[in-house]
């Protein structure tokens, strides 16, 4: 199919315990149209055992796991925040 040739680039960032578990702070990955935040998480976390709650933000806004990614999006995965 024609549109399966479309490749989008996104930046994925990790923080706190999730960054520790994955072993990096950020990476660029290629995705195809139709990919959700949940799809990205399943992919990047497939080799780790992370059982805690995962928060997800796209372009610095909290989103839910059904969020449909766009080209050049910055997606971030992190545990619940503990500042202040």
């Amino acid at each position, binding site marked *: 199919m024609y549109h399966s040739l479309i490749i989008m680039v996104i930046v994925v960032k990790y923080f706190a315990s999730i960054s520790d578990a994955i072993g990096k702070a950020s990476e660029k990955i290629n995705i195809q149209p139709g990919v959700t935040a949940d799809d990205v998480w399943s992919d990047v976390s497939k080799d780790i055992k992370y059982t805690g709650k995962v928060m997800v933000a796209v372009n610095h806004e909290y*989103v839910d796991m059904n969020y449909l990614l766009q080209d050049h999006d910055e997606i971030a995965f992190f545990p619940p925040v503990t500042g202040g």
Partner: protein
Amino acid sequence: MYIEIINEEFDPWQKLVEYKRSQLKERTNIGACSVFLGTMRDINSGDTIKSMELQHYPDMTESYLEKIIDSSTKKFKIIDSIVLHRVGLVTPSDPIVLVATWSEHRDEAFEATRQIMESLKSEAPFWKKESTDKGFRWVEPETNQTDNNSEV
């Protein structure tokens, strides 16, 4: 409004003096100021904490703090406000967060400062990693943090 993420030890009251001097001199409609300062304790969950690493998500932090302050400013008729938050390595008794709001009447400032602190604790992307005798550990969120936070 003033927001600053600070990567070194700071004197919160000195910051207030300076901000007041530069920004608030002529605001004679201000009747109230409410300030909250959070500092690092040397004990958490029963263990002695030697030091703590404050991580954050640059860019999202600033935009989220701005969002939190905007919301309280409108809700409580706030005339001015500042939020300072420390990142990096902190040791016991170090200031971590300062929130100050100015308003005409006291109810507004009291409630705005409180709401900003609660929102900051549950929404702003900061994380604390404690150094104890048993090693490093990430601080668990407060139990009253909302469950649907990721869907906000």
